[in-house]
């Protein structure tokens, strides 16, 4: 009996060990690259590009003082961080508010032109934002929103909405009509059913979408680089770009340090949200 069971556990553990080995090998280059980045940011010089020599905090100086690169003074990293946070945060909120309402309408309400709208949403998403740069420039300029974070937030939201609405629609589709009807019969208005019953059921979906849109905002570069000029509106991605603006004299130590700094919020964000990314609410119905 016991022998059999031990054998069993051994058997079931073997394939998972194999999985670890394979996954480990595949992720090794990425891990090594990150490791290199980390070490590089704390050394003054890398021998042959890989062996660190001498420990220094010099590269991290941008955290407490303004650094000068290639003769121009860089804007404060904290301004850039705040701007990045504002950009990603506002994008997430806007995208969620519009996306949830649009997703619900697309999934549940029957209105003329619904099918057409569904198709156009997909089409809109397929549009690369590069193709729109010039048109967007004219519009922003006309609205007086050029070189303003809010202008870019609006543009980015508009570009993201089709996909967000589409994903959230999928989550609403999975909520059975019966549950919604039960709410109506139990004495709620349609709106009350929506926010006391339906929204809690699509929470995992909302969590996933907000994480993705925050990350999309955090890593946005092209729109910000094109439509933001002034230093007080700079974001982290543009800050990094500024460090590399002259390809002949790039300080790789500082670049590594800023890159790591840029990554930290994403890592923290992932640690706190991975649970809700994984969690899928079990429904209480027969087939739903």
């Amino acid at each position, binding site marked *: 009996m016991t022998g059999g069971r031990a054998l069993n556990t051994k058997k079931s553990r073997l394939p998972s060990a194999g999985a670890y080995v394979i996954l480990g090998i595949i992720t090794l280059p990425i891990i090594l690259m990150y490791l290199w980045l980390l070490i590089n940011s704390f050394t003054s010089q890398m021998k042959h590009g890989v062996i660190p020599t001498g420990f220094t905090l010099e590269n991290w100086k941008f955290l407490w003082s303004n650094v000068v690169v290639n003769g121009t003074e860089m804007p404060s990293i904290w301004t850039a961080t705040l701007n990045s946070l504002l950009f990603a945060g506002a994008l997430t909120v806007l995208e969620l508010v519009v996306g949830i309402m649009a997703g619900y309408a697309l999934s549940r309400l029957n209105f003329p032109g619904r099918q057409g709208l569904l198709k156009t949403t997909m089409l809109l998403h397929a549009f690369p934002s590069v193709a729109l740069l010039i048109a967007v420039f004219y519009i922003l300029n006309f609205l007086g929103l050029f070189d303003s974070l809010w202008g870019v937030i609006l543009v980015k939201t508009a570009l993201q909405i089709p996909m967000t609405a589409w994903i959230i629609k999928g989550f609403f589709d999975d909520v*059975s009509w019966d549950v919604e*009807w039960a709410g109506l*019969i139990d004495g709620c208005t349609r709106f009350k059913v929506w926010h006391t019953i339906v929204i809690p059921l699509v929470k995992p979906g909302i969590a996933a979408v907000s994480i993705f849109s925050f990350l999309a905002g955090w890593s946005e570069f092209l729109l910000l680089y094109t439509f933001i000029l002034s230093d007080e509106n700079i974001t982290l991605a543009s800050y990094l770009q500024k460090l590399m603006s002259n390809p002949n004299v790039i300080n790789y130590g500082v670049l590594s340090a800023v890159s790591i700094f840029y990554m930290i919020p994403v890592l923290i964000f992932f640690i706190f949200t991975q649970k809700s990314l994984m969690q899928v609410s079990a429904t*209480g*119905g*027969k087939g739903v």
Partner: protein
Amino acid sequence: MKIELKQVCKSFTKGSNAVNDLSMTIKDGEFVALLGPSGCGKSTTMLMLAGIYKPTGGMIYFDDEPINHVEPKDRNIGMVFQSYALYPHMTVLENIMFPLKQMKVPKAERIVRAQAAAEQVQLGHLTARKPSQLSGGQQQRVALARAIVKKPRLLLLDEPLSNLDARMKIEMREEIRQLQKEIGITTVMVTHDQEEAMTIADRVAVMKDGSLIQYSTPMELYNRASNLFVAQFIGTPPMNFLKGDLVKAGDTYAYKENAHGSVLGIRPYDLKLGNQGNVVMNATISLVEPLGHSNLVSARIGDTLVRFFAESSYQAERGTAVVCSADLHSVSVFDKDSGYSQNVESCIKEAFAV
């Protein structure tokens, strides 16, 4: 509350009606069962009573008030959905309390009443669980408790017992019946199970393809089916159907097979071995199954297989020729084309005419 449906229609697609010209009256405090095969429009009818679907034609009255355009929340109804439709993110107790919360019942009272409702469906010990942690039958009972907790004016039950085991089914059936009588809620229950409909309901509405076929008391349904479909649907074991005529010979009537004749229906309980009855037919035994208290006999009359009961001591070999008989008044006759019930006389032929 009295409920009246007048020529109610509902169509989802152009040209076909899911519910077709349905007219029926449900008296105050009455228990009505909707019975019919899958897809005949039972759930659709319920959802129209609940106000979820708006009828495409006709009127629905609650106590003589037209309610076609009254929102579900203002109808004061309780409903058990075929899929239970529990709120997955709430505990059992929260689920049951939910209708009370919408009525603004104070929290303390809410908990007491919800707990009492949970006890009533024998779930008092599971109120802290989430629906996903319950079995299908338990979920179904939570749905029942949620439907009755606010003491609605109308209780709609869409197959509320389908997932319970046989014993629990009978227990819950009695519980529902008792509760319904106690507070006198008008109740409509959908079921596939004709036996359930017969035992629990004051009146049974048999539906087919969106139309009401017969609406009467269980006894009448059993004894005087208005139509071949109802006769086939009601009763276990099912009614025996024979195509042919009855040939009158003095006081007795002999069955004579005739593919173009009417359809004769005889309940298995009315068909007996021997010739005591005045409708007599010859049969060959194909199988005798002991049931304990009696034997179920399958036999052939002409080409048709019939079933009837015999004494538990009765034994017979396959192929034995026997005589069996029924009383003329227990024989139902249906038109072979329209399926409508007919007078028995219509299929009696005088001996000399043949």
